[in-house]
């Protein structure tokens, strides 16, 4: 399969791994954050830790949109869905995220009309086909998914579709990275920059991280070879004492980003003065709201919203895990009360959440595993 197989080539991966071993100073401990949840998932899915030296520690960042959404927002969205005739449409990974009174799936079992969609355009299509219902798309995601929500709203307005709205939870990545860097208990050497977000915003927005904070950034693809090559590029910079933004994912990420997507976002969204992030608290100018020109399609303006604020369960340490201060397994609830089946925190739900990725792919890999790693068949 093109664009997949060549990035999983064992020979090239071995070469990249050897280069990482050569570049890494054995007397130094490297703490490198992969910002994006997609990278976290790939690192576990491909078992990349098995081919890295033990002094390279990968820290999972805040780039999992489901994980950073505070429970109150889910409660608010589900409160709107309680109105008769409202269809609650969302991506599949939202469906098991717990709200105070259960997840969207549990609400579905109790009678709420909950539907999985693969794109906001699918939600709009449900609205077109069911004029007697009101379809509310529960929008989540960073700049990766925000443009498709924007385009869908532009389409709804152009077609004058009145029975459709968006409950907007879109967030932006840069303020989250800033919050991580401002956190006093966080020491990082470098960043593996987001891949999908960068296809939209490009690489320029990360330049301050290199310039002001002195930390290298390499935007990376999601295949094993992408991630290993990005680590090679970061280690080369660290070795040379440099801090620059580099683009490993050139086949997809343009340096200047996607202008058409940015234009659509600017047309539909404006920055909220502040927004609450799970684990990170309120961060100013970190999320998008729908502009007044689109108020008719803004669920928050159309429906009464309770504005629920819920504190996370005290024992769950989602915030510390989200910031990279704790590893998933260091949380008291990990694997006991909190599992992918019965998640307490959202990091255990989304396949991009570091707890779920760790639980699914790493947890239970016992010490005896060393003997199992060679090929078997």
């Amino acid at each position: 399969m093109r664009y997949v197989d060549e990035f999983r080539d064992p020979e090239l991966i071995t070469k990249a791994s050897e280069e990482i071993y050569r570049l890494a100073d054995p007397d130094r401990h490297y703490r490198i954050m992969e910002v994006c949840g997609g990278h976290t998932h790939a690192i576990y899915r491909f078992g990349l830790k098995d081919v890295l030296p033990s002094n390279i520690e990968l820290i999972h960042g805040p780039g999992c949109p489901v994980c950073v959404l505070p429970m109150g927002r889910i409660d608010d969205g589900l409160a709107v869905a309680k109105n008769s005739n409202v269809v609650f449409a969302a991506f599949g990974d939202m469906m098991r995220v717990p709200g105070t009174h259960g997840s969207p799936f549990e609400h579905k079992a109790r009678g709420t009309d909950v539907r999985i969609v693969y794109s906001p355009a699918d939600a709009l299509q449900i609205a077109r086909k069911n004029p007697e219902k009101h379809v509310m798309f529960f929008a989540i995601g960073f700049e990766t998914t925000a443009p498709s929500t924007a385009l869908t709203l532009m389409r709804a307005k152009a077609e004058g579709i009145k029975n459709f709205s968006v409950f907007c939870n879109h967030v932006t990545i840069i303020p989250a990275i800033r919050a991580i860097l401002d956190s006093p208990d966080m020491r990082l050497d470098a960043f593996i920059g987001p891949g999908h977000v960068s296809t939209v915003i490009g690489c320029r927005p990360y330049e301050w991280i290199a310039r002001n904070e002195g930390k290298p950034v390499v935007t990376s693809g999601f295949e094993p070879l992408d991630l290993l090559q990005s680590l090679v590029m970061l280690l080369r910079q660290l070795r040379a004492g440099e801090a620059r933004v580099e683009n490993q994912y050139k086949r997809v990420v343009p340096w200047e980003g996607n202008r058409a997507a940015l234009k659509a976002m600017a047309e539909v969204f404006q920055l909220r003065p502040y927004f609450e992030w799970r684990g990170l608290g309120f961060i100013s100018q970190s999320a998008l709201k729908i502009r007044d020109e689109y108020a008719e399609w803004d669920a928050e303006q159309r429906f009464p919203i309770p504005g629920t604020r819920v504190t996370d369960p005290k024992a769950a340490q989602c915030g510390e895990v989200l910031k990279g201060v704790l590893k998933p397994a260091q949380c008291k609830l990990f694997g006991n009360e909190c599992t992918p089946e019965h998640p307490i925190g959202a990091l255990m739900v989304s396949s991009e959440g570091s707890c779920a990725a760790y639980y699914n792919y790493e947890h239970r890999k016992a010490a005896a595993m060393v003997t199992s790693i060679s090929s078997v068949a």
Partner: protein
Amino acid sequence: MNGKSAVESARAATRFRDPQIEMAHGAGGKASRRLVEGLFAPLLYQSTGEALGDAARVRIDGTAIAVTTDSFVVRPLRFPGGSIGELAVNGTMNDLAVSGAEGHALVATFVLEEGLPTSVLEAEVRAMAGAAERAGVVMVGGDTKVVERGKADGMYITTTGIGRFMPQVTVDAKSVRAGDKILLSGPIGDHGITILLARGELDLEANLASDTRCILSLVQAVASEAAPGIRWMRDPTRGGVATTLNELARDCGLGIVLSEEEIPMRDEVRGACELLGLDPLHIANEGQFLAVVAPEYADAALNALNQAEGGEDACIIGEVRSEPACAVLVTTRYGGSRIVDMLVGDPLPRIC
């Protein structure tokens, strides 16, 4: 024990506590298992001390008979490569086959939705007749119920089958030993991905057909050459290969180690899974089976499969090890590895 019997205590320990039934309870993963082990088994089934298999063993006057039943609620009713009628025959025959039994007779129950066109029903009845003939089994009766419009997605079919156990074949997770080899009969994921695409909700197209078929002849081929070496068999339907092998790992207390590159899969399935973020190991199959075979019989079993019609793509995908206990580990070509768990819930609409 405070006057409680041991049975009552065991019931209390595993009681099913979920407050309501959700789609996940029918998806074949962890929630399904919880429901069966926590509610149905303790209240309804006679404990034989054996792990719950795909078919029950019933003794009548000293003769052992295999009994199984399966319901089919697939949407759409017809899809590339098959239809609900064929699934209903093949699925039950396959549950018998992987229990080491040759299906002898089937009965079918139809739950029909008011307003279902007769032509649709007739097409499915014909599909069942054809599948039964190909599988070499007789349909001997059934029952029909009609429910109100909007209540049954057109039709649901339940088939119940009885069969005769093959001589010398034992299917028992407890007999599995470290060093045993894991055989897979052919490429995975065809059925699940075909159904997903056939729903037309994804705007994806692929040249792919369901793998629904009766696997009895393949099981017989293995049994003819390697019967004493067969330890365990199962068809990886809902929840896919990963869920089935996790159940095995749990039942035998050992580790299952798979080699990713050995797992046969069509490019279309792989591509769709990459695109949709699904693990092909979690995707349903309707015409494959997994067999754990003692190492000294592995080559004979594989050769027999490869020479049988429809077993050409069969291969050994891994082996049983003492570690990681009760888990499934997949190793990659470049030396990485990951744990693969049972399917949790079901992000996809139901598919079989």
